[in-house]
């Protein structure tokens, strides 16, 4: 099934720089419907009101971290509870990756990353495009 590039994508990061980078990279590969949140609780609230075909979230955020957002989302009755979820983090510890996987993460990207990495990880969770 072809990937609908018009899908809504939610990106979550507490650094405005990263939000801009990810949004630009998504635009370059044809995804223009991008919403932004600056922490897990804001993102969780947004997932209650809109359908997302993909969620890309940073781990280290306050007050709600990316992993807590993922756990809350997966355990909720939100229409996005099973949405593909890519976690991004600068700290790539084995236990973090395991915790994320057990919590239902679809894929995991370590910072810094490039457009090619983002595209390949996206393709692995939503299909080739």
């Amino acid at each position, binding site marked *: 099934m072809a990937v609908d590039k018009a899908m809504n994508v939610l990106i979550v*990061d507490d*650094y*405005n*720089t*990263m939000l*801009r*980078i990810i949004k*630009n*990279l998504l635009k*370059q590969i044809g995804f223009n419907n991008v919403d932004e949140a600056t922490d897990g609780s804001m993102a969780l609230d947004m997932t209650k009101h809109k359908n997302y075909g993909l969620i890309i979230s940073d781990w*280290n955020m306050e007050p709600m971290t990316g992993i807590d957002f993922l756990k809350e989302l997966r355990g909720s009755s939100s229409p996005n509870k099973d949405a593909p979820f890519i976690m991004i983090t*600068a700290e790539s510890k084995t236990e973090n990756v395991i915790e994320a996987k057990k919590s239902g993460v679809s894929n995991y990207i370590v*910072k*810094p*990353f*490039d*457009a090619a990495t983002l595209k390949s990880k996206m393709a692995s969770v939503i299909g080739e495009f």
Partner: protein
Amino acid sequence: MENAEKSYGRDQVIQIINSVVSKVESTDKQETANSILSDLNALKAIIDEARTEIGSTRPKDINDKHIPTATDELDAVVEATAEASGTIMDSCDVIQEQTSKMDSEAARAIDEAVIKIFEACSFQDITGQRINKVVTTLKTIDEKVSAMLEVLSESLHVKHTETGEEEEIPPEKKLLNGPQLPENAITQSDIDKLLESF
């Protein structure tokens, strides 16, 4: 040499405590009391000397000046890099807007280079996170020093005052070649206005 003396001081304290304990257990009460008093006075002198030494190193400056200055400087680094990254990306947006109107191999090459610039801007996020870790560590040190000072506060305060030394001038006040923190700085336009007023 200094370390050896400090080590000897610690040994001396232990020796005196052991001496006090053994004398308490002895039989002659009056003689024991005098001896214990003498030992306790010696112990007090050593403790006072240690406090004086600690006080003379101005440990309170760590909480009052050094750590706040360091954390403020690091916060300013994060702010400055965020601002610079924003400016770089604003310019990239303008370039991309222009290349989107072109249809040439050159435009595609420029777009690819612009993407690389965007990717590289992630340094701001990563350095920011690392700096925040350092700030957290400094705050932990700050708390530990505060706890230590609380224990020694009264005597340190007295000794500090007694030293009568001149206030230490922070390095940044001796030099004029470092960047100021934003809240302490005035803008170029402020400077221009100030100069024009003469």
